[in-house]
């Protein structure tokens, strides 16, 4: 196909990715009268946001009126182990309440307090009950509301369209090339403002809560376009994924189970989280089961939170340790039990989709029996380096919002901070992208033709099955770049990834271009290899343990590295890693974080 026969579209703003961040960006850009295209890899409304369960964190103060943005900011920075982009964490804490209320104005039906306001539930690392929620299907509610708002805002939606390349001309973003799954035909989107909202990279690991889509497309597209990636060593392993039966391993079990009173136990029946209190949080959590249970029963002024509600990095590592030391369950997990803490009606009301999921997939009735759970790859804190105010990357005209953006969550994300992050920074990205609209630079035909040729190469070859290469990559990352890493494992991962790059260049696909998953996987491999390598290189560079990044050869945190960032950039064909210091946290905010005032 020559570039001249290619279907092409001109837009003021192109948003790639249609989860919460992409939809919110598109809605905002459209509100600024921009002509907007929303490009989604799946059907509209199926993006990862739909799977988000527990809720969206915002200091509305509806349940505990002591809450405000300052407490939320402090929780976020402490949860992120002081590594966060402080300005993003501040903007996020300040703007989240407005973004949640705005959803209500667009039709969202959050669960209510007795006095008719948006209800809020407790969650890991949050001082007060802070998560606006709808049972355990908050993401579904959010995506439906945004979807309906979006389709009534005059946005053009291009469904089942995967972007394979961004074009940068004269140092500015100029457009994107993609293909439609249905036909396998290419499409060129021309625009001087592109928002990446493609989500994460979880498909690079074997045990994951992420779907086929999460292959790090946005990270890799931006990297190839010359943008910088940061914090790629910080990958969140959610403490509670299903472990049994094998076919469901990795499927998420919401933190809401613990928010509603669920407890973690080892095979001796011991509530082991009391033994894993980090110094930073001493005094903030209950010391005894009696105190924790009283808190669950509703007496939240006199008692402190259960240690099961420590941040995800802490809980995941504790679970790994329990299992490693022989106190795990038969299938290599630990016990999550809510049946002994809440009555059956309450559980079914507050956690309906968990009830359904365990009943259908594991034949376990969570109102009667405990769940078996273990860590699962869930979220990447790292991403495209952006300006806190505008979400613009280091490539002019290229923006990033949501999981694909880096900095906001530091070394560990608090549960509930993702759904609010999507809204806050999705809106900002859409707003600034729209304000920067202008004629896009012309993309040379030869560049477009070359990209199409490269994408089609697997068809001409009798090569290896792309699924086999993908599986090999996931196995390597799970083994050598998982929850606990060390130098030799990471070096091994990098060496193995080099071999996989060579194999990926030789994969072959059979069949036609129409809806051909083998071909789609061959294309996705390119992105997976970039993000896997970036994550392993950054993990090797950070010689300390911090938040979600745990090095067995450097088990302690090193305060000198707290505000140091590992940045990754493409130079020629090489992936270059360097360290840079983040701007210092202003003194007043530092006092707030340290002293809580």
């Amino acid at each position: 196909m020559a570039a001249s026969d290619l279907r092409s579209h001109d837009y003021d703003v192109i948003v790639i990715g249609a989860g919460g961040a992409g939809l919110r960006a598109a809605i905002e850009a459209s509100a600024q009268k921009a002509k907007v295209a929303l490009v989604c890899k799946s059907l509209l409304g199926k993006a990862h946001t739909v799977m988000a369960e527990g809720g969206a964190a915002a200091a509305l103060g509806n349940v505990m009126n002591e809450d405000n943005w300052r407490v939320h900011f402090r929780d976020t920075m402490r949860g992120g182990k002081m590594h966060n982009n402080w300005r993003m964490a501040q903007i996020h804490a300040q703007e989240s309440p407005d973004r949640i209320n705005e959803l209500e104005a667009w039709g969202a039906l959050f669960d209510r307090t007795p006095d008719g306001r948006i209800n809020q539930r407790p969650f890991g690392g949050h001082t007060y009950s802070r998560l606006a929620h709808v049972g355990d299907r908050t993401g579904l509610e959010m995506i439906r509301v945004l979807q309906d708002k979006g389709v009534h805002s005059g946005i053009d939606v291009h469904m089942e369209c995967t972007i394979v390349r961004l074009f940068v001309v004269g140092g500015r973003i100029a457009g994107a090339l993609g293909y439609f799954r249905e036909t396998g035909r290419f499409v060129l989107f021309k625009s001087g403002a592109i928002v990446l909202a493609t989500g994460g990279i979880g498909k690079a690991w074997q045990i994951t809560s992420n779907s086929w889509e999460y292959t790090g497309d946005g990270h890799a597209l931006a990297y190839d376009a010359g943008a910088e990636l940061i914090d790629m060593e910080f990958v969140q392993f959610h403490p509670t994924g299903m472990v049994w039966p094998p076919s469901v391993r990795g499927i998420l079990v919401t933190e809401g189970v613990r928010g509603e009173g669920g407890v973690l136990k080892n095979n001796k029946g011991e509530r082991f989280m009391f033994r894993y209190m980090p110094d930073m949080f001493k005094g903030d959590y209950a010391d005894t089961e009696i105190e924790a249970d009283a808190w669950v029963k509703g007496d939240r002024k006199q008692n402190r939170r259960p240690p099961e509600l420590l941040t995800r990095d802490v809980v995941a590592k504790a679970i790994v340790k329990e299992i490693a030391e022989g106190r795990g369950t038969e299938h290599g997990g630990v016990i999550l039990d809510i049946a002994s803490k809440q009555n059956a009606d309450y559980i079914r009301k507050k956690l309906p989709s968990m009830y359904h999921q365990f009943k259908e997939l594991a034949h376990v009735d969570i109102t009667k029996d405990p769940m078996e759970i273990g860590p699962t790859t869930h979220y990447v804190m790292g991403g495209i380096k952006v300006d806190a105010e505008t979400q613009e990357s280091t490539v002019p005209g290229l923006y990033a919002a949501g999981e694909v953006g880096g900095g906001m969550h530091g070394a560990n994300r608090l549960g509930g901070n993702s759904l609010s992050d999507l809204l806050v920074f999705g809106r900002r990205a859409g707003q600034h992208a729209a304000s920067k609209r202008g004629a896009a630079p012309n993309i040379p035909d030869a560049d477009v033709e070359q990209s199409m040729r490269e994408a089609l190469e697997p068809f001409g070859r009798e090569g290896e099955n792309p699924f086999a290469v993908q599986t090999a990559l996931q196995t390597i990352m799970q083994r050598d770049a998982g929850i606990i890493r060390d130098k030799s494992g990471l070096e091994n991962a990098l060496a193995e990834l080099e071999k996989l790059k060579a194999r990926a260049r030789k994969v072959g696909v059979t069949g036609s271009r129409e809806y051909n998953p083998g071909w789609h996987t061959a294309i996705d491999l390119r992105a997976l290899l970039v993000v896997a390598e970036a994550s392993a290189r950054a993990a090797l560079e950070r010689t300390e343990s911090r938040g979600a990044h745990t090095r067995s050869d450097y088990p302690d945190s090193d305060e000198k590295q707290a505000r140091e960032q590992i940045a990754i950039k493409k130079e020629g064909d090489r992936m270059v890693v360097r360290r840079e210091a983040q701007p210092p946290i202003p003194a007043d905010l530092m006092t707030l974080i340290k002293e809580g005032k």
Partner: protein
Amino acid sequence: MSEQRTLRLFRGTRERGELKEYQVAAGEGMVVLDAVHAIQAEQAPDLAVRWNCKAGKCGSCSAEINGKPRLMCMTRMSDYAPDETITVTPMRAFPVIKDLVTDVSWNYEVNKRIPAFQPRKPDAPDGTWRMYQYEIERPQEFRKCIECFLCQDVCHVLRTHEKHEAFMGPAMLVRAAVYEMHPLDVVDRREHLHHEGGIGYCNITKCCTEVCPESITITDNAIIPLKERVVDANYDPLAALWRKITG
């Protein structure tokens, strides 16, 4: 503890296709989508199947399993006898794109035409509203809809009579019902449901309710109350008079 299972999958396009047989090693707890993925990864990499969450939350992997509309990710292999062949075909009410993937874009077009949500004036000076849990239980039930379109697939008005031009189908009626029964909404959608939506085509056979993987009582809680509202608006002489007076 894996056993060999036989699956027959539809392979082809809307022009031509056939059922092809595959053997799969089925492990404990395996669902039909896992078996389809195993076939894709090892035997037929170009086998088209749509999926995302694999946990019954996104509604992407809808198909017909032994003739019944179901989510592949929520259907366990062990639900079928060990020697039973499991046949998976694409949803019949929509055009096939390829293999198990159908073109469901019609649903998105229908949804776009449902009049948008519009709230009443805020209840509080800070621009927020007050709603009580009991008021929102009903629309919250409808919001559980994951847009799998299995109810559209089973609905004989669409499946057998192909009235896609005249009838929006149960899924989109549920979608409209969210806002019709939303305590804050001020828009009247009865005209739309009556004419463009063709709600009269539904003759309450409740097939949609039976296949809903989210157990939404589509017919009783969404469609029948909507039908009553439409009837009230169109055949109630008092209401008709009132409309004349108030314009």
